C-alpha cells in the first residue's frame, strides 16, 4: 500500500464548503420498531477536498451517502436534518427541501455518485457510449450526436484507449476496472461539484484499485470537485483522503485530517481499527494484528451509552454505559466522540 498522505489542510481550510451536512438522521421503520441508521451526522466537504467516510458494514456510511443524494427515500425510511449543497453563486441548496424535479436536476449535474458494483451498475443491454451520453442528454439541452461525441471525450478522460470502439461495446464485454472507469465517466459527464464514491474499488483487485484511485485523484485535481469517498479499507483512505470521518453504529465517532488520524487516533475504535490493519514493512515482524474483540452491535439492539463501550477496553462502568457522548471538537480540524479521550491512558495507547 502506498503511504501517500496528502496534507493540504492549510490551503483547503480557506475554501468554501461544497457540501455541508448538519444533524442528519436516517430512521428506518422495521417490524421491531424504528431504528436509527444514521444519527446526528454532521460533516462538510470543501472544493477539491476528499473526505473519506470509514466504517464497518452496517455502520451507516452508505446510508449517509444515499441520504445526501436523496436516494434513501421510501415509505420505511425517514430522513431529517440539513444537507446543503453550494451551487456556485447564491444561497446553497438544501437538498432535503427540494421537490422531485429539482432533486433530479441536482443528481448527475451538481452531485454524482459512483457505486460499489461496476458489474451491475451499468445497464447490461445498452452500449456504454450511449449510457454516458444519456447522462449528458438528461441535463443539458444537447442532441444525441453531440452527447455521443462528448461521451468519447469522457472515455478518453478516464483513460480508456480506443474510445470509439469501446463506446460501442456492451458492459459485459469490459473488465471490472474498465466498467468502473465507465461509471466514473458517467458520473463526471456533467462536471459535478460533488462526487460521492460508495466503495468504488471494493469489487476490484488491488492493482486495478490503485489505478482507479489514481484516476479519481487526478480527475479531482483537474475538475476541482469535492469528493465524498466511502470505504471500509483504511489502506484506501491513506491513498485518497484529505480528511477522514470514522463511523460506528450510525454515528461519526472521530473526524480528523488523514495524517493526524493515522499518527494519533483519539477514539478507541479508531485505535483498534489501526491496530487491526496488516502492516507491511520493517515493523511487520514484530507487529501482530490485534483484532477488536466482538462485533458491531445490531442497530436494533444498540447498547445504552456509547455504542462502542461493550467492545472498548477502556470503558468505564457508570459513565460509558450511561449516556451517549457528544462529538467534541479538538482544535479546528479534529473531533472525537468519547467520554474519556482527554485521559492519559488513551493518549498513551496511541503508540500501542
Amino acid at each position, binding site marked *: 500500500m502506498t503511504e501517500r498522505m496528502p496534507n493540504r489542510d492549510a490551503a483547503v481550510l480557506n475554501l468554501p464548503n461544497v457540501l455541508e451536512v448538519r444533524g442528519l438522521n436516517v430512521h428506518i421503520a422495521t417490524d421491531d420498531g424504528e431504528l436509527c441508521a444514521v444519527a446526528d451526522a454532521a460533516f462538510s466537504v470543501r472544493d477539491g477536498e476528499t473526505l473519506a467516510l470509514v466504517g464497518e458494514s452496517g455502520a451507516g456510511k452508505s446510508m449517509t451517502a444515499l441520504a445526501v443524494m436523496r436516494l434513501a427515500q421510501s415509505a420505511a425510511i425517514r430522513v431529517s436534518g440539513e444537507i446543503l449543497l453550494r451551487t456556485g453563486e447564491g444561497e446553497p441548496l438544501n437538498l432535503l427541501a427540494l421537490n422531485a424535479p429539482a432533486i433530479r*436536476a441536482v443528481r448527475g449535474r451538481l452531485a*454524482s455518485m459512483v457505486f*460499489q458494483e461496476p458489474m451491475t451498475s451499468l445497464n447490461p443491454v445498452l452500449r456504454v457510449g450511449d449510457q454516458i451520453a444519456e*447522462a449528458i442528454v438528461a441535463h443539458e439541452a444537447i442532441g444525441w450526436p453531440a452527447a455521443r461525441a462528448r461521451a468519447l471525450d469522457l472515455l478518453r478522460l478516464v483513460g480508456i484507449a480506443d474510445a470509439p470502439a469501446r463506446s460501442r461495446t456492451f458492459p459485459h464485454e469490459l473488465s471490472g476496472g474498465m466498467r468502473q472507469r465507465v461509471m466514473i465517466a458517467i458520473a463526471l459527464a456533467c462536471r459535478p461539484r460533488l462526487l460521492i464514491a460508495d466503495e468504488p474499488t471494493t469489487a476490484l483487485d488491488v492493482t486495478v484499485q490503485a489505478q482507479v484511485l489514481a484516476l479519481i485523484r487526478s480527475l479531482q485535481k483537474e475538475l476541482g470537485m469535492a469528493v465524498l469517498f466511502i470505504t471500509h479499507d483504511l489502506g484506501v483512505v491513506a491513498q485518497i483522503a484529505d480528511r477522514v470521518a470514522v463511523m460506528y453504529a450510525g454515528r461519526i465517532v472521530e473526524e480528523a485530517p488523514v495524517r493526524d488520524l493515522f499518527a494519533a487516533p483519539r477514539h478507541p475504535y479508531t485505535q483498534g481499527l489501526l491496530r487491526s490493519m496488516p502492516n507491511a514493512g520493517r515493523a511487520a515482524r514484530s507487529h501482530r494484528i490485534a483484532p477488536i474483540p466482538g462485533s458491531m452491535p445490531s442497530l436494533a439492539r444498540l447498547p445504552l451509552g456509547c455504542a462502542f463501550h461493550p467492545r472498548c477496553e477502556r470503558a468505564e462502568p457508570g459513565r460509558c454505559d450511561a449516556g451517549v457522548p457528544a462529538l467534541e471538537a479538538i482544535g479546528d480540524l479534529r473531533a472525537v466522540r468519547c467520554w474519556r479521550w482527554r485521559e492519559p491512558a488513551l493518549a498513551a495507547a496511541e503508540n500501542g
Partner: protein
Amino acid sequence: MLAVLMAVVAVFAPWLTPHDPDATQMLARLKPPAFMEGGELNHVFGTDQAGRDLLSRCIYGVRVSVGIALFGLVIGCLIGTTLGVISGLFGGIVDRAIMMLVDVFISVPNLLIVLVGVAAFGTDIIVLVFLIGLARWETYARMVRGQVLQVREMPYIEASRALGASRAWIAIRHVLPNIASPLIVLLTLNFPSILLLESSLSFLGIGVQPPTASLGSMVGDGRDHLIAAWWVAVAPALVIVAITFVVQMLGDWLRDVMDVRIDD
C-alpha cells in the same frame, strides 16, 4: 425461413391461390386430397361440402386468422406491458388496484369476455381484434410486473436515479429493454393460444363471419363431415399446428438475436 414463407403466402394470397376461396362448385363437393384415391391435382387439399378448394381457403384462412391473432396479441401486449410496468414501478395502491383487475380478468373465462363484447359491439373484425387483445392482457401485466420488480432493484436502476433520471425515463430506457426477452418468449407462447381463441370463436360462429375463410371456421365447417370427409377439418387444423410451431421457433430465434447477454 418457414415464417417468412408463411408471411409471403399470407400477404400474396390473391396471387397464389389456385381458386377463388369462396367460389362453390357443387359438382366437386367433398373431393379428397390429391394423394388419395379420387383426388385430383386441381384441388391439392381436396374440397369442402360446398365444393370450395381447401388449399385456397387455407391460404386465405391463414391470412385472416394470423392477422387477427397478431393484432390482438400486440394490443394485449401493449395494454398488459404498460399496466405491468406502472404496477411494478409505482407499487403501493396503484399496484394493488392493477393486480386486482388482473385477478378479476384471470378468473373470467376469455371466451366469456369476448362473447359479451361481441354481443355488445357486433362481429366486426376490428372489434374482434380489440376484444381478443383485451381478453389476454393480464398474463403480460403479471409477468411484466414480476420482471419489473426484479429489474428495479438492480444497481443500474439506482445508478441512473443517481444521475437524475425520471421514473418514466427509467421505465422506457432501462427497464423495458431488460425485460424484452422474457416478453418476446411470452408473446410467442401466447400466440398459439390467441390463434386458437380466434379459431374457437369462429368455430362457434361468433368470430369471422362466412363466407370469409378463417382457420377456425373451416375446422368448424368440417365437424359435420369428420367421418365421411375428414380432410375438411384436418387440413386447416394441420395449418394451425404448423403456424404455432413456426411461431415458437421464431420466438426462440428472436430472443437469441435480441438478447445481447447470450453469447454465441
